[in-house]
């Protein structure tokens, strides 16, 4: 069964350092997302990405964050200068098989990876 894969599973970094979290979405999906979950809290939307550009971002996704799809398979989240409060689980998700357009139902089912636990010390 196709799945979203994320690496690394756990990333430890020092405050102020840059980190790159990596994701391989499901291969025929067109829409990509990053969410985060602070321990014990709900999952929060960060950013959505479609057609090589950001389609939506939350207030959390400030100038320290960026996303990129460097090739046909990877989708990355970069945090330029990490802060203590960036410590969280970061989930990548994808949706929307190719060939479906507009608001068709299957596009909306977002499939999540297992997450990367980011610990900022």
């Amino acid at each position, binding site marked *: 069964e196709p799945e*979203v894969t994320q690496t690394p599973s756990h990333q430890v970094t020092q405050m102020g350092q840059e980190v790159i979290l990596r994701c391989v979405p499901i291969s025929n999906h067109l*829409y990509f*997302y990053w*969410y985060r979950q602070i321990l014990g*809290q*709900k*999952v*929060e*939307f960060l950013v*959505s990405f*479609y057609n090589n550009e950001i*389609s*939506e971002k*939350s207030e959390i996704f400030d100038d320290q964050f960026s996303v990129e799809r460097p090739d046909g398979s990877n989708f990355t989240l970069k945090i330029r200068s990490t802060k203590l409060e960036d410590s969280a689980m970061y*989930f990548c998700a994808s949706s929307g098989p190719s060939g479906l357009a507009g*608001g068709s*139902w299957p596009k*909306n*089912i*977002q*499939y*999540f*990876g*297992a*997450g990367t636990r980011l610990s900022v010390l």
Partner: protein
Amino acid sequence: GESVGLHLPTLSVQEGDNSIINCAYSNSASDYFIWYKQESGKGPQFIIDIRSNMDKRQGQRVTVLLNKTVKHLSLQIAATQPGDSAVYFCAEFETGGGNKLTFGTGTQLKVEL
């Protein structure tokens, strides 16, 4: 602001019983809802979804009910099994609202043997 919330943080049920997990949402423009299951250390796993033009949808052992009048969702799990123990989130989606899911706070389901 708009929010999606859950009525109960923890639900304990006996193995074999039916479970009902509730969710209230406040964005009247939401037109699509998903239930996710999250096991410890894992990402949210899709369970079942429903569009706002439906009031009920059934899957394997799961049923989602939608009451738009009172902005309420429920997830019913039949014959609950130990493997159902997890945190369950409802998430809402608004077409044209940026393609993002807004998650509720989650309900911990504990299945007792």
